[in-house]
């Protein structure tokens, strides 16, 4: 059985989006503009924290709500200030929200007995998909959708952002790999005279290769450690900046053990592989050629 | 006019925290057309002396005058210009630019001196012919033998018609036969009026010189 939700959480754009003109709702001056004793009968509303700050309104204040700028306004009593759940999809839109009881909003809109949607709680054991299918068989002018499908659809934005980040990460890894290989090659080539000398006095290729590889491992390990430290700092800075910029508690950058393990494994792997390739190339070359005489 | 005058040259430098007294008061004069050989055991200060005479190092004490100009008072730009136009250097390891051809290596100092392209190309050809390498003009330095490279280096040293050639062990990296070719070349150079100061271990090369200076422990031990 469908029941309307007790309190509909709806967004009303009260103007002032993008920091433009001031909102149409403002505190009703406490100068007796309301008939005495009417406060108690005013419809209660809850303001989002940012809206309350913008209006400089607190619990107990009255505000005027209208649908049109300059249109007929209805007074309402602020009974709560709330922090809305951080929604990444809306973080950049800078909309303000407030909550009213459904009949009050309907009266304001002049849309008696009309809603945008119902939230339906099913009895235990009832599968959302089958319930939705049953509703849709008799539906006319509405569709029933399991909440999970809504969530999937709503998260498409983040799927796109995630894929974009992945693509950037791949490009970065490729650039890093080339860079690492180049640097390791240069580093190892700098040692060619030393390597030539060692070969000429009888040191085995394996020994030289091992020494160069060990160097590569050390460089890769220290570099990975430094990079990790840098990443942690950057993550803290990113969150601090964007949380302030968007006035939200959303976490924008999250460094998890999995991310750390993957990154370190990749950088170590790339560094060691690059060093090994460079070292192998060096030990393959004849000593006299390394010495510059061949 | 005396070409080069060195007075009481001293040179100390630090090596692994210790002070090395490479030169301990050396004086000498080089006249136009001179052919001087500086010989001595390793570490006697021969190359250090040559570097000071050519203005590529500064003495700890003492002075060097080239054509009457005290080198230690000149700013780097003027010193460089003097080396470009008045002195030619020949090194033991040739030090040609491997990516350039023989002709391009010879043209390098002329390009720096602002000689027009056509003129310097012609002069490079002439100089390489003079040193017997007319057939190797367009070969890269890496394609030349040791003796050929040294002859290109000599041609390069002659590019701007210097009054003086300073050579540091010019036959050090060459076999005996090739060394004799260089010896012949130096003889010809000196006969054509170029003053030569040659640091060498090579007895044959030293014997060719009209004056021989022996050095030991940073001092001139004998001069003749």
């Amino acid at each position, binding site marked *: 059985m469908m029941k309307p939700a007790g309190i509909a959480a709806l967004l009303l754009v009260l103007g002032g989006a993008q920091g433009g003109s001031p909102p149409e709702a403002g505190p009703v001056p406490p100068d007796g503009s309301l008939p005495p004793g009417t406060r108690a009968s005013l419809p209660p509303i809850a303001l989002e924290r940012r809206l309350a700050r913008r209006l400089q309104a607190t619990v107990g204040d009255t505000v005027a709500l209208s649908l049109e700028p300059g249109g007929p306004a209805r007074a309402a009593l602020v009974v709560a200030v709330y922090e809305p759940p951080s929604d990444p999809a809306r973080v950049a839109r800078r909309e303000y929200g407030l909550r009213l009881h459904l009949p009050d909003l309907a009266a304001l809109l002049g849309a008696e007995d009309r809603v945008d949607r119902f939230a339906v709680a099913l009895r235990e054991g009832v599968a959302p998909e089958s319930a939705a299918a049953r509703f849709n068989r008799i539906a006319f002018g509405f569709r029933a959708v399991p909440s999970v499908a809504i969530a999937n659809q709503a998260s498409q934005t983040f799927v*796109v952002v995630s894929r974009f980040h992945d693509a950037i990460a791949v490009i970065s890894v490729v650039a890093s790999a*080339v860079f690492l290989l*180049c640097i390791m090659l240069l580093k190892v080539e700098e040692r060619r005279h030393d390597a030539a000398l060692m070969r000429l006095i009888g040191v085995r290729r394996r020994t030289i290769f091992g020494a160069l590889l060990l160097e590569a491992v050390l460089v890769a390990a220290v570099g990975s450690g430094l990079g990790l430290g840098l990443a942690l700092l950057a993550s803290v800075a990113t969150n601090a900046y964007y949380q302030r910029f968007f006035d939200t508690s959303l976490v924008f950058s999250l460094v998890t053990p999995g991310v750390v393990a993957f990154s370190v494994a990749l950088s170590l792997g790339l560094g060691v592989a690059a060093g090994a390739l460079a070292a192998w190339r060096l030990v393959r070359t004849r000593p006299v050629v390394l010495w510059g005489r061949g | 006019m005396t070409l080069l005058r060195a007075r009481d040259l001293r040179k100390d430098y630090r090596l692994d925290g210790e002070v090395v007294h490479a030169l301990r008061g050396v004086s000498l004069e080089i006249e136009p057309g001179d052919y001087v050989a500086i010989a001595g055991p390793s570490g006697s200060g021969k190359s250090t002396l040559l570097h000071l005479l050519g203005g590529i190092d500064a003495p700890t004490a003492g002075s060097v005058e080239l054509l009457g100009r005290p080198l230690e008072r000149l700013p780097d730009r003027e010193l460089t210009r*003097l080396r470009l136009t008045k002195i030619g250097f020949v090194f033991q390891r040739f030090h040609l630019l491997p990516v350039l051809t023989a002709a391009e290596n010879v043209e390098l100092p002329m390009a720096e001196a602002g000689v027009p392209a056509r003129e310097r190309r012609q002069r490079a050809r002439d100089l390489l012919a003079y040193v017997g390498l007319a057939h190797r003009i367009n070969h890269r330095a890496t394609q030349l033998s040791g003796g050929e490279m040294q002859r290109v280096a000599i041609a390069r040293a002659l590019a701007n018609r210097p009054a003086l050639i300073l050579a540091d062990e010019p036959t050090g990296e060459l076999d005996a036969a090739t060394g004799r070719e260089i010896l012949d070349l130096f003889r010809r150079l000196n006969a054509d009026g170029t003053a030569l100061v040659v640091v060498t271990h090579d007895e044959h090369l030293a014997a060719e010189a009209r004056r021989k200076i022996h050095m030991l422990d940073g001092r001139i031990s004998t001069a003749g």
Partner: protein
Amino acid sequence: MPAALRNLRRHPMRSGLALAGVAVTTAMLLDMVLLSRGIERSFERLLLGRGYQIRVSPKGTLPFDTEATLAGATALRRTLESDPAVEAVGPFLGTSLHARRGDSLVTLFGYGIDPAAQALYQLEEGADLAPGDTAGVLLSRPAAQAIGAGIGDTVSLLGRLDPQTASAAVERRLVVRGLARWLYDYRGQPSVGTVLAVMQDLAWQRAEDRVSAMVVRVREGADLEAVVERLRAAAPRAEVNSVGELVAHFRQRLAYFRQLSSILGTISLGVTVLLVATLMTITVNERLGEIATLRAIGIGRGTIVRGVLAESLVLTVAGGGLGVGLGSVTARYLDQILTAFPGLPAAISFFVPEPRSLALAAGTLLATGVLAGVYPAVLAARAPIAATLRAEAT
């Protein structure tokens, strides 16, 4: 320069890797430069594509941002048209509606427009709507497919559905005049368009004469900012924005991408400088003997410095050239990813090549090449001649 090129060929593997590294970082730099301005340029082109420089929407909103509407559209239009600098005003209404397909209903997006003054579609096939054509409809191709209708067919559009009575308060049968590409549709969006009055009926907005927004075209030579200010004063209950102001709002929403592109672009530059500087420094160190000899034979410091900088530049420019090609490919790939954003107009692109962006990328790359060569050049110029020659001899 020729010597610089030849010097790079001395170590083909090393130079090849460095070129590859510079190419990849240049590609990233180019993509980030394109990204930083691309979507704004794309959005601006979309808004100005039909020549309307001003948008009027409900107070505090941007066009199509919310379901808010403007009442009294006819009066408002007259007010706007009374400004001497205004050439044309096109009101439009966007709404959700349904069409019959057999026994089922198909959900569509509807545009109510004035065909004589519209900025929402381009006709692709068939005939356009005439200004008073209350019997015609234009379909997008996805809508035509969804309804199963073509040009000349009659379709039933329903509005204001009542689930209790399973009926529609409004139903109109319209003839498909043509197929249109709706400029603000996302990929695959099924859209239909009728004259404004018909759509107002379907959306139950006729009584209050409501529209979603209006487009305004200003006469050539008029001062756009002044016109915007006048219209704001004339219509205080509406939000009036020039296309430039809309782009600025849009830019604010896309702050993340702009900042990301700045950060990644800067990192790319840093990596390029590091790579080229490291390569050049090691190269200079290897060639100190050569350099000392050149100084000994009278080659000045300036010439040495220029030589090193030339090599650094050649490496950066050559790698950069490759990077431009690679960057074009990666830009297309990244654009494919980002344009999959739900609800994004299909006409929008994130990576828009334009001369200014390309010039910026090229200039930055050149500066990078010079910067990367500075330290190794100084190293080369300051190499002590005698000490270096001594070291070479041992």
